[in-house]
């Protein structure tokens, strides 16, 4: 099964500076943070936002758009299936680890 983390442009810039590429699992203050991901592949930002309730459709109101789909490798990661996203359609997972990113694809609007 393939897994995807939908990321902002800012996090893409952080990921591509890491070797190998990994999604960071700390927050802006260095506290441990879980990384959320899904097994749903979306080609458009709008579809990802609707299914995951993020970006323009975040419950807090419109926020940063996930412009990029990161394909992730969960080798060595522990993760939890959180079930369907409330208000969305995708299944969401979370890991306390730093998944390796094998590809970053820019999405259509």
């Amino acid at each position, binding site marked *: 099964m393939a897994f995807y*983390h*939908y*990321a*902002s442009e*800012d*996090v893409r*810039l*952080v990921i591509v500076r890491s070797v190998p590429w990994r999604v*960071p699992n*700390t*927050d*802006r*203050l*260095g*506290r441990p*943070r*879980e*990384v*959320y*991901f899904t097994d749903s592949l979306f080609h458009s930002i709008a579809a990802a936002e609707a299914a*995951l309730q*993020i*970006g323009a459709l*975040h*419950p*807090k*109101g419109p*926020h*940063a*758009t*996930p412009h990029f789909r990161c394909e992730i490798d969960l080798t060595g990661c522990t993760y939890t299936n959180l079930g369907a996203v*409330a*208000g969305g359609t995708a299944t969401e997972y*979370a890991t306390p680890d730093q998944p390796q990113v094998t590809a970053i694809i820019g999405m259509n609007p």
Partner: protein
Amino acid sequence: MNLLPDFEVRCSVDGTPASGLPVLVQIKMREKNDYHHLPGLTDAEGKVSVESAAVEADIEAALNLFPSDYGAVGGANSAFAGVLSVHAMNVSEVEAALRAYDLFHAVSPYPKDHRANLEAGYRQLLALAPRRIDVEILSVRDGTLASKITTGSLAFPAMASAPA
């Protein structure tokens, strides 16, 4: 109307006000990750103010950086657990905060004096040697959403070596 309360924290060591210490505020969430806020360093009286506007700015910054990884604070779908906790940071936490600043500062906004405060706080922690730091909440001025505020106190572990 603020979503979170403004309040003041005081740190002390052996009953004496402890200045120059970094304090971490945790905004506990029922879903996804907790948010964190660093209000700055304690002053000569061991006090530091936690301002709702600054907390909310950190919430916005976290959510904009990681759009998939944080829930809502406030609104009909708020995932805020209604609890804030506060503790004095220890040496390893400050080291992690310095690493995080170096990782994210090029793409995410921080207060102008953020790194300098962390470095000063780090030096102050090293100067204290291993001691228990007590933390008190002194005042809550506008609690519209928080149902409970907890205060933490922390005995920080044996001193780590200075970061390379």
